[in-house]
């Protein structure tokens, strides 16, 4: 029996597995530098990460702590005992012939991630977070028809954590928003850079389709090779549609692994490297197990920073910010920190500081090509500038000039004085500029006198410019109206 896709009500079930590089100085089991992206090939390697016989690995305590910090940020339980296991398979990027990972006793279990998707708050379960090590990298070359691979082991042994989510996601958009929220938390707590382009944050997805009444249930399909949030969303939209069409046509969906081909916008069936998931896990004999004391967990918990969702809520509550501004200010921890330093004790100035930061400081940051965590002016200087604006000592245009001209360590008022940017209270200066403007714009003057009152806007703009941006708009308008009525 074949049914049109529209006659069936489908449900999509998605679970995500994220691999995130743990931010450390050295590798997981040896003291080689964990920096691999910019180093020449095979310069950060030793007997341990090359897998030479007899080499003895030693656990990086900081990596363990980062994984526990991640688990706690995701509301996980930290079991008092865990161990490491060997996952065996052969591939040239894995010199030992096994990857050290965790099988049945991971560092963190049973958590959840709360995130917002299309304006609705959602909570998805986190099955586990465990520690493992990354592999080396292969570069493929063609040698007169024969294919060879170049092996670079700089990445071999770099600490990696796997964050396994429950199949609680119901749409591709939700999957994307889950990933964005997870990455934001990892960055907030300093556990990972979350950089997807550099491969420091990778995602595989399991997606299955069923009918709402449960009469038809497709097998779980694993999707790989998605290298951006957009790719995850696109791949899942494609796969959701593919599975629905198959089920509607009365066909079955086999359990398989498929790769996303971004250029073509399709998923294709992949031959898996291992014939079965026959990794023959067994306890790693070179690494004694870990006992995680409650006091250790407590100290990590106590050192957790305020997480993005809580911080956003506090910004709305304490500073009276709108939800979208609070969201923008808390996207990155560095931005939120800068904002809070700028506000300091002047809470009543917070909204203005938020406006100036989001519009003008960010604008200047982009213009100068600065990274998101490098600010063109100091936080205290932003506060001083907003104070001058609120006191009427600086016009909006004067403040913009001051933003662009102030140097580190300088006092905003002193620079405004030096650059002659302070607002002019002296009406003689404005009157002179206004007379000059009126003489130069007979057409606009005629328009105004002929009843087109809107023409005053252009005259005001010219007059303010003639004062070097120092004339306050209300004073300028009053003087122009006075002169035009004569």
């Amino acid at each position: 029996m074949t049914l049109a896709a529209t006659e069936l009500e489908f449900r999509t079930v998605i679970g995500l597995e994220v691999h995130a590089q743990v931010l450390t100085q050295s590798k997981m089991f040896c003291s080689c530098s964990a920096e691999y992206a910019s180093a020449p090939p095979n310069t950060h390697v030793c007997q341990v990460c090359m897998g030479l016989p007899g080499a003895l690995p030693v656990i990086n305590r900081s990596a363990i702590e980062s994984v526990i910090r991640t688990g706690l940020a995701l509301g996980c339980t930290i079991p008092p005992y865990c161990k490491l296991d060997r996952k065996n398979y052969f591939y040239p990027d894995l010199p030992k012939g096994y990857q050290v990972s965790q099988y049945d006793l991971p560092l963190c279990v049973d958590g959840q991630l709360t995130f917002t998707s299309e304006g609705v708050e959602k909570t998805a379960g986190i099955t586990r977070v465990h520690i493992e090590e990354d592999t080396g990298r292969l570069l493929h070359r063609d040698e007169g028809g024969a294919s060879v691979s170049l092996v670079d082991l700089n990445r071999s042994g770099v600490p990696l954590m796997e964050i396994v989510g429950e199949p609680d996601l119901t749409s591709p958009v939700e999957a994307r928003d889950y990933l964005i929220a997870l990455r934001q938390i990892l960055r907030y707590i300093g556990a990972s850079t979350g950089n997807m382009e550099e491969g420091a944050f990778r995602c595989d997805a399991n997606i299955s389709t069923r009918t709402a009444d449960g009469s038809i249930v497709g097998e779980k399909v694993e999707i790989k090779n998605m290298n951006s949030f957009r790719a995850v969303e696109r791949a899942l939209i494609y796969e959701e549609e593919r599975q629905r069409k198959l089920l509607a046509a009365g066909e079955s969906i086999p359990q398989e692994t498929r790769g996303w081909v971004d250029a073509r916008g399709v998923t294709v069936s992949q031959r898996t490297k291992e014939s079965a998931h026959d990794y023959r896990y067994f306890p790693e004999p070179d690494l004694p197990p870990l006992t995680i004391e409650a006091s250790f967990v407590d100290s990590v918990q106590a050192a957790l920073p305020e997480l993005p969702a809580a911080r956003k809520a506090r910004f709305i509550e304490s500073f009276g910010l709108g939800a979208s501004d609070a969201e923008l200010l808390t996207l990155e921890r560095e931005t939120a920190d800068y904002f809070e330093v700028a506000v300091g004790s002047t809470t009543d100035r917070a909204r203005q500081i938020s406006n100036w930061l989001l519009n003008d400081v960010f604008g200047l940051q982009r213009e100068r090509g600065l990274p998101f965590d490098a600010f063109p002016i100091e936080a205290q200087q932003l506060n001083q500038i907003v104070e001058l604006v609120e006191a009427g000592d600086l016009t909006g245009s004067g403040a913009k000039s001051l933003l662009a001209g102030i140097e580190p360590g300088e006092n905003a008022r002193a620079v405004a004085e030096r650059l002659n940017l302070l607002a002019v209270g002296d009406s003689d200066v404005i009157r002179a500029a206004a007379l000059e403007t009126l003489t130069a714009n007979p057409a606009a003057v005629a328009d105004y006198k002929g009843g087109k009152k809107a023409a005053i806007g252009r005259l005001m703009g010219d007059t303010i410019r003639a004062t070097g941006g120092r004339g306050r708009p209300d004073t300028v308008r009053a003087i122009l109206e006075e002169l035009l009525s004569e």
Partner: protein
Amino acid sequence: MALTLADVDHVATLARLGLTDAERERMRDQLSVILDHIGELAELDTDSIPPTASVTNMTNVWRDDTVQPSFTTDQVFQNAPRVAEGCFVVRTPLGGEGDEA
């Protein structure tokens, strides 16, 4: 415990070993004897002994996150059969071209 030839083939595939028919027979017999020998442990009464993954009685052997010098280039490639572009050169495994650009 008698292994089947299919078991031997599966293990051989995982180990990337190509076996002749004579070797398959020999491996089946040898591996079966090894498993029987290990199986004798099952005769012991271990009900009162808690399971463990380690026999050293050590826990939390870890180090601080500090970087130490790595190998020199000479040390890295001392035993490498082939080197090019600062990398070990190997034959590309089947189906491996699509892995990374």
